[in-house]
């Protein structure tokens, strides 16, 4: 009997290749390719008066220099606005190469192609651009004040204003026995994968065919965009995703300027052309996230139950808005978390600034929304002198109330309806895990020793597995090997392993017989992409359905061959057999042979399928409404997202003198429904928590008033080393299967990072005795907050 693999910590099939150094990442490809370097704006906002390339023309190995004037047809138009929205009244996107104005430091102005990157940079250095600097709009506050404009034709720097509400928040707050208001802020951070962006293009002039490798989260998206921008029939464009060195959201953006310019150059020059982004470029010309200013008004009763909540925020989306309103919409809806807020109003402005574009980074707006709601819950507890966990519990949606309709429209344009979840059970698990009930005495004991310790808590709900769809294809070849393909891409999530586990269980074959291919438009041309923790839910479900179709056909064909009733057949370890009848069996490989009647033989297996070997002479070799081959293809397209959830607690100690912040314990309770591979899910949580630690305590984008990013390197953008993450991340799981998909899966990819800002603010506030309202926070900032607090304290004292 094949042992069930779903739910097992199966070792990854990806790893033997990767640990040998046999991975094939973008820059490992195209050893014969010429290389590009990009001239990027040193100004945050300026008119381009002149571009003088003469000095660069005599550089050895120079092949071409392109500026806006060299772009033709659709390439000369702005890049696409990927996700339009009715509220997005002033959407602006950048040109592949700046036309007459630059709007952020790092915006592409000229593309240089040379024999190698060294020579390309020599040429870039010799191009002289004259600029007329314009006043830069930096930071949410400056954008909101609108003393200066990023785009002359966008009044107030406002791309969109969106309001959603249920009930009457203002009235409920006014009538509430207790009221509070909070002003909060979250700074910019970024996905920062260890591998930057990159693209390699080969133009086959004979076939008029383009083959493109790109380090992306959506191969099909890039294919469609490149086809349109370069005017090449989509059937003549192949996009292949090689190994991708991390994405975390930034690589869902497409097409990047380089993704259309590199194939343009390859076609023009008749040479393979490669762009490999360097680290400094990634800081100033990829994408960031997170920056928001927030204002919360809340009314609640004596028990801490929220009666009405009004959430107003201002979202910094950078110089352009190619990815639409996805991030602020997620903030505005997912702020609700596991809570029942009877009267809720949310309004946001999405604002232009002269800084790098903002697109989803792991968590995608949720960390900001959770920060607003969880700081509010802590504030309510403090106001009423109640236990922080108790206040949360009193506001929870109860399991019996599932599915629960929050009455809002989610990022996918569909109703925000939670499918399942058990928040009280999660909270109980977390309180046990962190020993919540003995905290007060622990903290008192520590304070007696002059130590400052704090415990933080934060809860979240995460809509995962958004549509529209994904597909899967399962094919059994005549040797019995199983080829599986899905269109979305992988950036290290172990898809080849997790999807193989699903197929092994559905089809009854050994894992080692299965090969999974992702992100190759030649293998599966219909797909959306990898984002919003959707791969396992969407492609996992689609592949399960495709495997079921394959199994049904295998059973049908085997039943004919074995003269048995399909209902009596089972597939075990790749053998189709009549249950309880020893010997009555066929290998799947043989069934595959039978599925493809042949005229010509080229090996033993095919000989067995030729016309004089098999088949009823009186029946058509391939039955009506049947197809040759043993394969199945299916798609999964859910009516709406499924909702994972979790709760984190962190125990910190702050140094009374140096204000350094140490993490003593980090506890996670996580519910993503059915676990396909617990080892992989645990790894996703670990990674998310570490990014959360970075986002809460270390990472920020330090722009100066002029829009210069002052920490555009790993020297000053402080990604955590092992020394900055907790010694151990304690994890407990709850499995509330989703009713929406065949396997009961919910997404897990982003979970770990979502509550970090909130949970650390909660813990540091608990340690310090005053509320933290801005994240991230550094020791220097904590030091100054202490001084302020002492000052206010003294001023507050009656003299």
């Amino acid at each position, binding site marked *: 009997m094949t042992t069930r693999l779903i739910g097992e910590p199966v070792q990854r099939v990806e790893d033997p290749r990767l640990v040998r150094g046999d991975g094939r990442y973008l820059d490992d490809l195209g050893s014969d390719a010429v290389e590009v370097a990009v001239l990027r704006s040193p100004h945050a906002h300026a008119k381009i008066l002149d571009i003088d390339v003469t000095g660069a023309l005599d550089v050895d190995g120079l092949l071409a220099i392109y500026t806006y004037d060299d772009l033709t047809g659709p390439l000369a138009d702005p890049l696409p606005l990927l996700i339009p929205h009715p509220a997005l009244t002033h959407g602006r996107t950048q040109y592949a190469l700046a036309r007459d104005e630059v709007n952020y430091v790092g915006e592409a102005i000229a593309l240089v192609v040379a024999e190698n990157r060294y020579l390309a*940079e020599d040429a870039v250095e010799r191009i002289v651009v004259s600029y007329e600097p314009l006043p830069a709009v930096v930071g949410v506050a400056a954008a909101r004040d609108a003393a200066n404009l990023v785009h002359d034709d966008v009044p107030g720097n406002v791309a969109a204003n969106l309001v959603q509400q249920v009930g009457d928040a203002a009235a409920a707050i006014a009538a509430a026995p207790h009221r509070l208001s909070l002003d909060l802020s979250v700074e910019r951070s970024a996905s920062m994968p260890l591998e930057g962006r990159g693209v390699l293009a080969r133009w086959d002039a004979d076939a008029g065919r383009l083959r493109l490798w790109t380090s992306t989260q959506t191969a099909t998206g890039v294919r469609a965009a490149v086809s349109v921008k370069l005017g090449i029939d989509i059937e003549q464009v192949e996009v292949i995703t090689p190994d991708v060195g991390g994405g975390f959201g930034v690589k869902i953006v497409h097409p990047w300027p380089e993704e259309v310019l590199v194939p343009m150059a390859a076609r023009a020059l008749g040479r393979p052309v490669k762009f490999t982004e360097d680290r400094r470029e990634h800081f100033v010309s990829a994408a960031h996230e997170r920056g928001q200013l927030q204002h919360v008004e809340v009314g609640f009763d004596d028990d801490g139950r929220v009666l009405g909540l009004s959430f107003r925020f201002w979202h910094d989306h950078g110089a352009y808005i190619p990815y639409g309103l996805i991030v602020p919409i997620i903030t505005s809806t997912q702020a609700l978390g596991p809570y029942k807020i009877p009267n809720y109003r949310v309004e946001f402005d999405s604002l232009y600034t002269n800084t790098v574009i903002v697109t989803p980074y792991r968590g995608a707006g949720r960390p900001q929304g959770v920060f607003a709601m969880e700081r509010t819950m802590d504030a309510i507890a403090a106001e009423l002198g109640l236990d922080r966990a108790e206040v949360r519990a009193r506001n929870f949606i109860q399991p019996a109330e599932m599915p629960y309709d929050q009455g809002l429209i989610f990022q996918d344009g569909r109703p925000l309806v939670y499918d399942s979840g058990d928040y009280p059970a999660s909270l109980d698990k977390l309180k046990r895990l962190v020993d919540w009930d003995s905290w007060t005495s622990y903290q008192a004991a520590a304070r007696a020793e002059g130590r400052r310790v704090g415990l933080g808590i934060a809860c979240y709900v995460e809509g995962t597995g958004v549509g529209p769809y994904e597909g899967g294809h399962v094919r059994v070849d005549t040797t019995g090997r199983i080829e599986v393909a899905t269109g979305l891409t992988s950036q290290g999530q172990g898809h080849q392993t997790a999807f193989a586990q699903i197929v092994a269980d559905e089809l009854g074959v050994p894992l080692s017989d299965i090969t999974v291919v992702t992100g190759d438009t030649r293998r599966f041309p219909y797909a959306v992409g990898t984002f919003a923790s959707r791969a396992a839910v969407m492609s996992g479900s689609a592949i399960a359905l495709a495997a079921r179709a394959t199994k049904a056909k295998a059973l049908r064909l085997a039943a004919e061959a074995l003269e048995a009733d399909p209902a009596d057949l089972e597939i075990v370890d790749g053998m189709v057999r009549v249950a309880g009848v020893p010997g009555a069996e066929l290998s799947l490989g043989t069934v595959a042979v039978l599925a493809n009647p042949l005229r010509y033989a080229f090996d033993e297996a095919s000989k067995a399928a030729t016309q004089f070997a098999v088949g009823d002479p009186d029946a058509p070799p391939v039955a009506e409404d049947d197809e040759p081959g043993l394969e199945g293809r299916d798609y999964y397209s859910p009516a709406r997202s499924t909702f994972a959830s979790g709760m984190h607690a962190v125990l910190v100690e702050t140094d009374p003198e140096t204000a350094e912040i140490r993490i003593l314990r980090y506890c996670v309770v996580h519910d993503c429904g059915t676990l396909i591979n617990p080892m992989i899910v645990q790894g996703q949580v670990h990674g998310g928590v570490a990014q959360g630690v970075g986002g809460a305590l270390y990472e920020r984008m330090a722009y100066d008033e002029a829009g210069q990013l002052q920490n555009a390197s790993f020297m000053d953008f402080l990604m955590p080393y092992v020394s900055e993450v907790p010694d151990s991340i304690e994890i407990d799981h709850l499995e509330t299967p989703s009713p929406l998909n065949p396997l009961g899966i919910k997404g897990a990819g982003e979970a770990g990072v979502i509550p970090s800002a909130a949970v650390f603010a909660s813990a540091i506030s608990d340690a310090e005795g005053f509320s933290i309202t801005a994240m991230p926070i550094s*020791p*220097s900032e904590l*030091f*100054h907050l202490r001084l302020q607090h002492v000052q206010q304290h003294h001023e507050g004292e009656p003299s």
Partner: protein
Amino acid sequence: MKPSAVSYSRPGSVDEALALLTEHGSGAKVLAGGQSLVPLLSMRLAAPERLVDINSLAELGYVRVAADGVRVGALARHAAVLADRPAAERQPLLAAALRWVAHPAIRNRGTSVGSIVHADPAAELPAVLSVLGGTVTAASTAGRRTVPALELFAGPLETTLRPDELAVEAFFPALPAQTGVAFAEVARRHGDYALCGVAALVRLDDDLRIVQARVGYLSVAGTPRVLELTGPIAGRSYDAELAEAGRLAATELDPEPDIHATAEYRRQLAQVLTARTLQSAARSAAGVAAGVPA
């Protein structure tokens, strides 16, 4: 990020190296460990005409320990100096500080003398050399001269060495009797350059009372700062509270802000670390005096 084109020489002897430096003057740049220089080249912030690679000069790879102190040759890697037990015993501050220098992979290639003459105000060794009153030996075709630490550092990344001079050796004097040292710094991440770093030296009399307290600082000015802080704590027992010394240091120092720390926070760190390191230096001095390993 790729370097600009550059010429390259790899001298086989010190004399050959000095001749090259004389020939090319300020157009030449010495490549030793290169852990500072190569990123500057890759970012094209430095574009010397010629690199003079001294990695063949094995005769400069020494760490010599004598009664009067530790001599470190221009090609001795941080890791080799850190691993040298006799050196650590003769001058404990050396190893105490080197542990804070970046990460092992960097220490495996980077050289201690190179770090000193690169003169980064956030680097550990310039402060150590300064607080110990050490020296650097500079060689040129014109001969050799010994430059005291306090005359070496002219500003951020600036020394008083001439372009034709090669720093061939750094000398870290041994500790006087009943003298202890300690090093501490606060950085954002382990291995980052310090927001503030402190190297303390304390000498005790026979009654284990403080007769001298001197502290060297990194990351609080354009060059290493050295403060004599004996005043407020002279005569204190080796195990006394030394907060006044910290407060004095805070008034003496005028640090600059950056994106990681305000000037006020740096001053606070200097005050706290001064008191902490002076205390452990004093205890260490007492331990030494009592024949107990520090």
